[in-house]
């Protein structure tokens, strides 16, 4: 039974390979597909840059320095 299963599995996989080839032949990868992905990469990169800009301290402030505590009246 195991051997028969293996043989049947191989035939189903062969069917998958043929179908994959057929779909690839009828619908080849288009430049539009790649450009869509690259557009999303660019957008993601811009969001990261914006997040980095917002993390940077405002000019004139010393990075990492805690604000001074208020003076205590004596």
């Amino acid at each position, binding site marked *: *039974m195991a051997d*028969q*299963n293996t043989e*049947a*599995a191989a*035939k*189903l*996989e*062969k*069917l*998958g390979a*043929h*179908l*994959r*080839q*057929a*779909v*690839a*032949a*009828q*619908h080849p*990868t288009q430049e*539009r*597909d*790649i450009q*869509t*992905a*690259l*557009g*999303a*990469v*660019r*957008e*993601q*990169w811009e969001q*990261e840059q914006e997040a980095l800009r917002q993390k940077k301290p405002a000019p004139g402030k010393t990075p990492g320095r805690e604000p001074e505590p208020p003076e205590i009246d004596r």
Partner: protein
Amino acid sequence: MDDIMKLVRTYRLTGALDQRLSLADALFRMIVPDLRFFVFSAVPHHAADDVLQETLKGIAASLKKFEGDTKNAFWAWCYRIARNKTSDYFRKEEGNRLEIMPPDDLLQIIESAQPSSGIPAQERHDLEYAVGLLRKAKPGCFEFLWKHYVIGLDYGEIAAEHNIQYDNARMKITRCLSEAQSLMS
């Protein structure tokens, strides 16, 4: 290391936009054909291009966050995004899922893309047998056999999709295949 994983790992470490674009270009040219096949077998053909575009956007936008280390984990992650996009499509557009590639049409799909020489006789015999198995499979089994053997999803991906244990998915697929075979003889 596999080419796909080399590209994915390098992409994760790369900050410069031009380098990311170049890596993504190479990566997507490698993965689009399999993603297209997955999407074309899951949604009606008139909608497949749009669903594919959404899938590609989803993968590209979160590629930096992908944490897996193997090609299998990467494909499972890609297919999960594709599945979410096909579910979005069915939620928005249609109430019922259709059988997108009915067994009776499979050989015709293959033949229509073949050169005029056609499929060799032995090969055709094997393909007819495979189509016969899918025809004979019980309704609950067709989907498991189709996803595992034809689309190429592994047991783990199918288990996650159906919310069952890995071993249950493996046993179910083995049982479905045996049953379909016994109905063929």
